[in-house]
C-alpha cells in the first residue's frame, strides 16, 4: 500500500497548521518587530533597525537581568545536578522507606508554582516568616531580616534556592530512571574485579549516566533562560530590579511600560540563548556518544 496520496498530509495538516500559526509565525514576527519602535497606545511602527539592541546593551536593568539568568543557570547546574544524583543513588540503595522518601522529595514539583512562590514569600517574610522564626533561635541578628528585600544581592539567591528546592525532586526522578536501567551484572562484574562502591560509581554509573545527565543539564539551562514565574510571584523582579531576569524584564517593558519593540528585542535574545544552549548540548552529547562508540 505504498501509493502517494494526500492522506498523510491531511492527517498532519491540522497540527502543523496550528503550530505554524501560533508558534512559528509569531516567533518570526517577534524577530521582525524587534527592529521597530512602537506601543499599543501609538501603534504606528517606526523602523529603528538595531537601535533596540543598542539600547539594551547600555540598559543597566537588562544587564542585571542577563547576569541573573546566567547566575540561575550556573547555580542551578552546580546545585541541582549533583544533589539530584546523590539523592538518586542514595534513594536507590535505601534499605527502607525508599518509596516514601521519593514521594516527599518529588512533592514540591507537583505543588502549583504560584503557590510555591507565595509559600516562600511567607517563609522569607521578615517579621513572621518560618525562616526567621527558626534562625532567631540561633542568633538575634536574624530578627526582621528581609530575605527578599535587604540587602538586594541576597534576593536572587533566595529565589534560586526555591527553584532548586522545587526541581531537585524532578531531576532525581529522571536520574533514578537512568540508574534503574543500568543492568545489575555490570555492578556484579565490578564487584568481582574487586572494585569499591566508589570505584563502581565512577567506573560504571557515571559513564552510563553521562548522556541522561547531559539531557538533564539542557533542561536546567533552557529552564533557567525561561525562568519567570517564581521571580514574578515573589518580587516582580524587585527590589529596584535586583531579581530581574530576562522574562520578567521583557514582560515589564512590553506589558507595563508599553514598549513593545523593546520587549520583542528581549524576547529575541531569549530565543537566541535557548537556541545556542540546545545546539551546544546536542553537539556535546553527540560527541560523547561518538566517543563511546569509538
Amino acid at each position, binding site marked *: 500500500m*505504498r501509493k*502517494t496520496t494526500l492522506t*498523510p*498530509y491531511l*492527517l*498532519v495538516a*491540522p*497540527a*502543523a497548521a*496550528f*503550530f505554524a*500559526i*501560533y*508558534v512559528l*509565525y*509569531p*516567533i518570526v*514576527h*517577534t524577530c521582525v*518587530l524587534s527592529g521597530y519602535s512602537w506601543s499599543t497606545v501609538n501603534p504606528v511602527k517606526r523602523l529603528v533597525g538595531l537601535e533596540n539592541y543598542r539600547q539594551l546593551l547600555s540598559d543597566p536593568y537588562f544587564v542585571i537581568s542577563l547576569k541573573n539568568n546566567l547566575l540561575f543557570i550556573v547555580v542551578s547546574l552546580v546545585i541541582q545536578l549533583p544533589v539530584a544524583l546523590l*539523592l538518586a543513588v*542514595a534513594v536507590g540503595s*535505601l534499605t527502607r*522507606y525508599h518509596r516514601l*522518601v521519593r514521594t516527599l*522529595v518529588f*512533592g514540591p514539583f*507537583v*505543588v*502549583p508554582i*504560584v*503557590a510555591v512562590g*507565595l*509559600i*516562600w514569600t*511567607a*517563609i522569607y*517574610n521578615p*517579621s*513572621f516568616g*518560618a525562616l*526567621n522564626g527558626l534562625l532567631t533561635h540561633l542568633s538575634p541578628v536574624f530578627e526582621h531580616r528581609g530575605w527578599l528585600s535587604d540587602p538586594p544581592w541576597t534576593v536572587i539567591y533566595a529565589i534560586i534556592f526555591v527553584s532548586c528546592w522545587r526541581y*531537585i*525532586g524532578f531531576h532525581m526522578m*529522571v536520574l533514578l530512571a537512568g540508574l534503574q536501567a543500568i543492568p545489575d551484572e555490570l555492578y556484579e562484574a565490578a564487584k568481582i574485579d574487586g572494585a569499591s562502591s566508589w570505584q563502581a560509581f565512577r567506573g560504571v554509573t557515571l559513564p552510563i549516566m553521562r548522556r541522561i545527565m547531559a*539531557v*538533564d543539564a*539542557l*533542561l536546567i539551562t533552557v529552564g533557567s533562560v*525561561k525562568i*519567570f514565574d517564581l521571580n*514574578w510571584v515573589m518580587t516582580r523582579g524587585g527590589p529596584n530590579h535586583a531579581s530581574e531576569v*530576562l*522574562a520578567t524584564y521583557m514582560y515589564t517593558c512590553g*506589558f507595563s511600560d508599553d514598549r513593545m519593540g523593546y*520587549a520583542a528585542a528581549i524576547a*529575541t535574545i*531569549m*530565543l537566541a540563548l*535557548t537556541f545556542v544552549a540546545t545546539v551546544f548540548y546536542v553537539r556535546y552529547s553527540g560527541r560523547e556518544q561518538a566517543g563511546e562508540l569509538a
Partner: protein
Amino acid sequence: MKPRVGTLIRDGLVGLIALLFIAPVLWALVSAFKSQSEIRLEPWSLPERIAWENFLHAWQGHMGLYLLNSAVVTFIAVVIIIALSAPAAYAFARLQFKGSTALLAFIVSGLLIPVHAVLVPLYQFNPGSLLLGRLAESWAPAMWLSVHFGDWVAVLGPYIAFGLPLTVLLLRSYFIGIPTELSDAAVIDGCGHLAILRRIFMPVARPAVATVAIFQASWIWNELVLAMVFIDEPLQRTLTIGLMSFQGEHATDWGIVMAGVFMAVVPVLVLYFIFQQHIVKGLTAGAVK
C-alpha cells in the same frame, strides 16, 4: 543480620533531607488554619484556635471559581492537543510520505521554545480572538462565547500549540511499537486511517496518552504569563492569576493567603498521592523519553 550503623545513619540522613523538602509545604498548610495575630506571634506554633474564617474569605475570594476555571481550560486544551496530535503522530509512525522527516522536525522544534518569544505578536494579533470576533458580528452563539469566554479562546490557542510538539513525538514513538498485524486486519476490513487510529491505535496507546495528558495538564495548570497577558476578565481567571490577585487583595493577612494556597495545593497533592506512579511518569515524560 543486623543493619550496620552506617546504613542507619545514611537512612536517617536521607529521611531528614526528605523532611526538609516537605516541611515548607506543611508549614504553609498549617498556617492556613491560623489567624493573622497567631501567625505574627509565633510562626512555628500549631493553631490554638482553628481560623475557619480564612477559608470563608478564600471561598468568597472566588478561589473555587478559579479552580473550576483552570480545570475547564486545562481539560479543553488537553483534549484538543491529543485530538490534533494523534492523527499527525499516526501519519509519522505508519505512513511513508515525502517530507515527513522535515515536517516532524518542524513540529518538534517547538519543544524548547520559550512562550515569551510569542507574547508580543500574539498580543497584537491573536488568531483565535480575531476569528471569534469576526464570527460574533453575525452569529449569536459566537457573540455569546466571545462575551463570556473570549479570554479563554485567546489563551487556549498558544496552550494547544505549545502542547503539540511533545505529544506528537511521544505518541509517534508509541505508535511505531504497535505490531502491524493489529492494524492489517482492519485494513483488510476496509477501515480508513482515522477508523484504525480510533479503534486500534488509541485504545492500545492508552498508557502513552495518559502519560502525555498528565504532562500537558500539569504545565497548563501552572501556566502564568500567557494567562496574565490574555485573561483580563475577573470571572475568567485561571488558578495562577486568580491566586495572585487574591494575594494582592489580602496582602497583609497571610492566614487568608495561605488558605487560598491550601485550596490550590491540597487537591493536587491528593491526586499525587493517589496516582503517584502515573503522575511521576507523566511529569518526567519530557526528559526521559
